[in-house]
C-alpha cells in the first residue's frame, strides 16, 4: 500500500493476534485504506495459531459441528463480531459462514442464521454486512453450483465475499471445468446486482475481474502459486516458513515463479529481450540475482507488488467482459511463452506451465456460453 497499490486490507485471524491486528488496522486506516476482517469460518476445524486471542474464536467449534445455536449463544456471537469489527475499525462486516455443499440445505439455513447474527453486528456499528459465499468441494456440476447460489443469494446482504474450494492437493487447478465453475459462480453472484469481493485464491485472483468481481484479495501466501514447502529452510522465527531462494513472479507467465538460474538460461538459449520480458513488471522488492537466500518478508512484498500490478491492469478494463477477454489473451500469451521455453529445452521448476491453457479455455467457454450474463451485468450497471 505504501507503494501505491491496493484499496485496503482483509485481516485474517489465523496468524495474527487480535491486539496486533488492532495496531495494524490503525496503520492501514492512517494510510487512508479500508479494513475488513474475514473470520474464516469456512475453515471451521482450524484451531491453531493466534486464533484463541479473537473474541469469536470460542464459537468456531460449535458451528463447525453444525450444532444448533441457542439464542443466548447467538447474541454472544453477535457481540463478539461487533467487538472485533468495531475495534478494528472495519468498513464492513464479513459474515461468518461455512462452505456450502451439495444437497445440504441445512448449511443454507445455518449460514442464513450466521448472516443474521453478523448483520445485527453490522447494523449496530452502522456499516454494511457482506455475506460469505464459499462453494465447497462437493459442488462438482454447474447445476449444483447454481442451486447453492439460489439458496445463498436469498440473504439480504450488501455484497458477497466469495470463495471457491478447490482440491487441496491441486492448488493450481488444471481442469477446465473447475475453473469454469469458479468463474461462473462469481459471475452469477455479480449478476445479482450486488458487489462481489473475491477472497484470496492465488493466481485465480487475476481472472476474478473477468468473472464480475468488484474487488479481489491478494495475499502473501505463496503456496497457492505452486511454491513448495520443501523449498523453505526450517525456522522457528515468528510468522512461520523460513528464508527461501530468490525467485521472481513473472507477469508475462501469469505470475508464476521463475528462478534466477532459469532467467540466465533463458537469456542464453532464447534471447535477452525474452528473458527481460519474463521479468516484467519489475518491483522495488525484486531479489538480487546473486543472493543465495532471500528474506521471506521481501519475497512476500515482491509477490504482492507484482500480482497487484498485474491485477490492477485487469481491474481497469471497461467491464467484466473486457476483463475476461484480456485475461484470456494474457493466459494465451503465457502459454505461448511457455511453449518457447520448452522448445528451448528449459524445464521451469514448480511446473508453472500446467494451468494457463486450461484457464484460457475456461475463460473462453464462459465468454461464449454466458454472453447474456455479461449483457445482463452491463444492463444493470455492474462491473
Amino acid at each position, binding site marked *: 500500500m505504501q507503494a501505491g497499490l491496493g484499496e485496503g486490507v482483509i485481516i485474517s485471524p489465523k496468524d495474527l493476534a487480535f491486539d496486533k491486528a488492532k495496531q495494524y488496522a490503525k496503520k492501514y486506516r492512517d494510510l487512508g485504506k479500508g479494513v475488513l476482517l474475514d473470520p*474464516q469460518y469456512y475453515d471451521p476445524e482450524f484451531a491453531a495459531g493466534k486464533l484463541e486471542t479473537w473474541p469469536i474464536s470460542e464459537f468456531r467449534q460449535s458451528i463447525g459441528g453444525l450444532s444448533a445455536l441457542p439464542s443466548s449463544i447467538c447474541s454472544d456471537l453477535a457481540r463478539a463480531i461487533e467487538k472485533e469489527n468495531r475495534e478494528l475499525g472495519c468498513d464492513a462486516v464479513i459474515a461468518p459462514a461455512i462452505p456450502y455443499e451439495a444437497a445440504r440445505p441445512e448449511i443454507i439455513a445455518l449460514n442464513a442464521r450466521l448472516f443474521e447474527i453478523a448483520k445485527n453486528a453490522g447494523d449496530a456499528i452502522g456499516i454494511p454486512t457482506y455475506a460469505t459465499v*464459499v462453494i465447497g468441494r462437493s459442488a462438482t456440476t454447474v447445476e449444483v453450483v447454481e442451486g447453492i447460489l439460489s*439458496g445463498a443469494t436469498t440473504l439480504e446482504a450488501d455484497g458477497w465475499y466469495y470463495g471457491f474450494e478447490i482440491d487441496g492437493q491441486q*492448488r493450481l487447478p488444471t481442469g477446465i471445468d473447475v475453473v469454469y465453475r469458479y468463474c461462473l459462480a462469481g459471475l452469477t453472484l455479480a449478476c445479482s446486482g450486488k458487489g462481489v469481493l473475491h477472497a484470496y485464491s492465488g493466481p485465480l485472483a487475476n481472472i476474478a475481474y473477468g468473472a464480475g468481481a468488484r474487488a479481489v484479495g491478494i495475499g502473501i501466501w505463496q503456496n*497457492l502459486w505452486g511454491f513448495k514447502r520443501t523449498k523453505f529452510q526450517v525456522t522457528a522465527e515468528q510468522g*512461520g516458513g523460513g528464508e527461501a531462494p530468490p525467485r521472481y513472479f513473472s507477469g508475462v507467465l501469469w505470475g508464476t515463479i521463475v528462478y534466477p538460474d532459469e532467467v540466465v538460461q533463458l537469456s542464453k538459449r532464447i534471447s535477452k529481450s525474452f528473458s527481460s520480458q519474463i521479468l516484467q513488471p519489475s518491483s522495488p522488492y525484486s531479489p538480487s540475482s546473486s543472493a543465495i537466500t532471500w528474506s521471506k518478508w521481501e519475497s512476500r512484498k515482491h509477490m504482492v507488488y507484482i500480482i497487484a500490478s498485474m491485477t490492477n491492469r485487469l481491474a481497469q478494463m471497461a467491464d467484466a467482459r473486457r476483463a475476461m477477454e484480456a485475461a484470456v489473451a494474457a493466459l494465451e500469451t503465457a502459454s505461448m511463452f511457455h511453449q518457447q521455453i520448452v522448445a528451448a529445452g528449459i524445464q521451469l521448476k514448480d511446473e508453472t506451465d500446467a494451468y494457463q491453457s486450461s484457464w484460457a479455455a475456461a475463460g473462453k467457454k464462459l465468454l461464449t456460453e454466458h454472453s447474456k*450474463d455479461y449483457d445482463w451485468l452491463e*444492463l444493470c450497471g455492474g462491473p
Partner: protein
Amino acid sequence: MEFIVPIEVAKARFPDFEFVEALTPSAQKAAFHVRRSGKDYCLKIIAPTQTLERVQREVLAMQALDHPNIVKVVEYEYSVKDGEASHYIVEEFIAGDDLSAHMTPGRGWSIDKIVEIFGPLCDGLAALEAAKIVHRDLKPSNVRIRSDNSPVIVDFGLARVLDMSSITATVDGAMFGTPRYFAPEQLRGTKHDIDHRTDLYALGVLIYEAAVGHHPTLRKSVQTFSELFDAICNCKSYLEDKTFKLLPQRLQLLVGRLLEKERAKRPNNAVIVGKILRELGGADASRGLAPVWPYWSKTSSGANAGRPRGGRDH
C-alpha cells in the same frame, strides 16, 4: 376447490355491509364488493383451511404497508362465537379491471404501455420485498388496473400453502386450476426455496404475456403434471419465439432473466427490474431507487487477504 359462500349467507353474517356483488372466489377466500358508510370495500371471507397464525402474520405485515400499488388492508378479524369462526379481511375496493381484461391473446402491448403498467407494479413488488412479504400467487386476476392505468397488487397472504393435490387434480383429462404463473420452485414443492424472486418469475410471465400475446411456456391445454412440470421447469423455447425476438433487446434480456429457472439467475430485486423497464420507455428511471452497487472500487485489495481453505500456508 374454490371456497364459495352464497351471497345471501354472507349478507346474513355481515349485516353492517351493503353487498354490491360477489367477486371471483378462490380456494383461499370468498370475495364480495361491499359498501359501508358510502365507501366501497372488498370483503374477503377466509376459508377455514387457511392457517390462522400465517394469515395473521401476513395481515399484520400488510397493515403496516401504505403503497399506491398495493391494496390497503382496512380491517381484519378472527373471532369464534358460539362455536362458529368469523375470519375475514376488509380491503380497499379497487375500481377498474383485472390485468387479464387488458390482455388479448395474440396481441402484444406497446412498449409505452408495458412501462406504464409494469414499472409501478415493480414499485409495489419492491415494497413487498422490503416488508419481507412474498405474494406467491401473482397473476392477472390479482393485479387490478385503475382507470388511470395504475396497477394495484391484491390478494395477499392467502396462497402460501397451496395444496399440490388440488394443483394436480384433473377434470375430464385436463388439469384443473393449472398454476400458469408458478415458478419452478413452487412446482417442485420446495417451500424453503420460495422467496421474493418467486414473485419476480411470475412478473416475467406477466410481462411476456403482455408483450408477446401468449404465455411463454403453456401454449395448449396441459394434460398431465409431467407436461406441466416440463413446461415450467425445463422449457426455454419461448426465447426463440418470433414475436419475442422482435422486442427491444433490453426487454428480451430482462424478461429472459426474470424467467430463469434458477432463482440465483433472476434479478435480485424488483427495484432493478423497474429501473430497466423505465429506461426502456425513457421515463424517469431514478424514481424511488436505492443505489444498486456498493462503494467498492474496481481495484485489488492488499496483502493478508482471506483465502479458501487448504493446508497450512508458508
